[in-house]
C-alpha cells in the first residue's frame, strides 16, 4: 500500500500537470470507468506535422487515475501521433511504477484508453487492451 501511494504518485495527484480544457482543440474525448465513477476528459492540440503541442485534461477520480493522466500527459507532449500509436499498457504501468490489483488497473489505464480512443478510435484501444 505504501508503495502504491509513493511520493511521485501523490505529487502528480495533488498537482496534476496540464490540468484544464483546451479551447479550441484538435482532439477531444471523454470516458468513464463505470465500476468506480472515475471520469477523464482529454483535449489535445496537434500541429500539421502530427506533433502534440498542447494537452489539457480534467476529470474526477482516485489518486491513481489522476496521477496516471498527469504522467501520461507529460510523457506524450511533444511526441507525434505516430510515435504514441505503439505505446502499450506496460509502458504506462512502468511509468507509474506501483503494484496494482486487477481492480485498480482500470483506474490506472483510463488515461491511456481516453488517449487511444481519442486519437485512433475504439478499435485501436481494443487492440491495446487485448495485448
Amino acid at each position, binding site marked *: *500500500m*505504501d508503495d*502504491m*501511494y509513493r511520493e511521485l504518485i*501523490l505529487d502528480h495527484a495533488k498537482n496534476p500537470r496540464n490540468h484544464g480544457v483546451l479551447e479550441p482543440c484538435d482532439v477531444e474525448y471523454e470516458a468513464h470507468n463505470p*465500476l*468506480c*465513477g*472515475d*471520469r477523464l476528459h482529454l483535449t489535445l492540440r496537434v500541429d500539421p506535422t502530427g506533433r502534440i503541442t498542447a494537452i489539457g485534461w480534467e476529470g*474526477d*477520480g*482516485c*489518486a*491513481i487515475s*489522476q496521477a496516471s493522466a498527469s504522467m501520461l500527459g507529460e510523457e506524450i507532449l511533444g511526441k507525434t501521433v505516430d510515435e504514441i500509436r505503439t505505446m502499450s499498457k506496460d509502458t504506462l504501468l512502468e511509468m507509474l511504477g506501483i503494484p496494482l490489483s486487477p481492480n*485498480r488497473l482500470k*483506474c490506472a489505464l483510463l488515461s491511456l484508453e481516453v488517449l487511444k480512443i481519442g486519437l485512433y478510435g475504439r478499435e485501436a484501444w481494443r487492440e491495446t487492451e487485448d495485448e
Partner: protein
Amino acid sequence: MPSESFGGALDVVGLRSDFPALQQEHHPGVPLVYLDNAATTQKPNVVIEAMSDYYRRYNANVHRGIHKLSEEATAAYENARVVLKRFINAASKREIIFTRGTTEGINLVAQTWGRTSLNAGDVVLLTEMEHHSNIVPWQMLAAERRLRLRYTPLRTDGALDMDAFRRLLQEEPVKLVGFMFVSNVLGTVNPAQEMIRLAHEAGAVVVVDAAQAVPHQSIDVQALDCDFLVFSGHKMLGPTGSGVLYGKRALLEAMPPWMGGGDMISRVGFERSEWNELPYKFEAGTPSIAEAIGLGAAVEYLNRVTMAAIHHYEQEIIAYALERLSEVPGLHLVTPEHTPHGAVATFTLQGIHAHDVAQVLDAHGIAIRAGHHCAMPLHERLGLNATARASFYFYNTLEEVDRLVAGIYAAKQTFSV
C-alpha cells in the same frame, strides 16, 4: 449453535466463532475487519456444512428421481421453502419462488407480470434511491412497451419525499410502484407499509426490493400487504445464487411463466404445453439445490439468534459508527442520521477519493466498499461520483468501528489532509 439470550445483548464474540472467514488475519498480525456486508455477508459453518452435506451425501436432482437420494434432496429443498415461507410469514409455501437473487426476482416480475399487465403509456413509479436492479429491468421493459418511468424524489435529509410520492400517485394513473425497503447507500428505511397502502389506494401493484431489509429486521409480507417482495440469500448468511421472489398467490397464478423448460410444465406436447402449478411454474430447469438448502440453513441460524436481537444490536452499532465518523474532520456523512437506520455508513473524505480511502483501509485489514454501489442515479442526484461505504452485520463489534476510524485517520495522514 449460536449462544444468545432472547431480546438481550448478543454474544457477538460467541457468534463470531461460527464464521470461519472472520477468524483470519488480513495480513500477518492484522485481523480482518469485514465491513462490506451490504455487498455480501460471511457464511456461518452451519450453512457451509449444509451445502457440503448435500454434495457429499445426498446429491441428486429434485422432483424427478424415484430413488432415495432424490427423495432426500427434494425433501431438503422443499423444507428450505417452508423455512423461508415462515421467515417472511407468507400465506403459502407456493408463494415462495426460489431465484438467484434480488436482480433475478425483479426481472422475473418485469418479464412476466410486467409484460402481460403494462401497456404503452402506463406509468411505473420508482424512487431516486433505487439500486440499478430496480431501475434497469423497468427501463428495458419501458423501451419495449413504451412505458413511462417516474421517480419519487429525495428530500435533502435523505428520506423519500412522501408528499411528492402522494402527488405522483394522483397526477396520473400509476400501474406499478417499485421501491427499496432499506437503501444500500443512505441507510434510509422507507415507510414501506404506508407506501404500499397509498399505492394500493391508487390502484397500483407494488414490488418491494427488500435486499437490505430482510437480512436485518423481521418481515411480515402479509402485514405489509405487498404484492411482490424480493431479496438475496447471500446478503443474509446464505450462499450466492440463492434468493426469493415472494408474490401474492392470485397474481402468481395469473402470470405466465418466464423461462421454459423442465420442472415448470405439467404436460408437454409438440405444439403446446401446460404449465406446472406454483411455485414450479417459475422454477424452470434444475434449480440451485445446494443454494436453497444453504439459504434454509442460514435462515434457521438467523431464527436462533432472533431477528429482534439482530435489529436491536445493529441499531446500537450503526448509531455508534455514525457518531464516531461524524467526529472525523473533513469527513462528510452521506448517510443521514435517522432512526431506525439501515446498517450502512456512507461517507466521503475531503481531499481523498473514495477508492483511495478503501485502498488504505484495506492495508489496515479493513474491507469496505467504494464507488457508486450500483446506485449511479442516486449519486448523480447527490452530486457525488463515488462514496465510501462501511456496512455492518450483527457479528461486527464496536472495536471494529474504532479500527475503521483509526484507519480513516491513517488515510488522512497518507494523503496529508
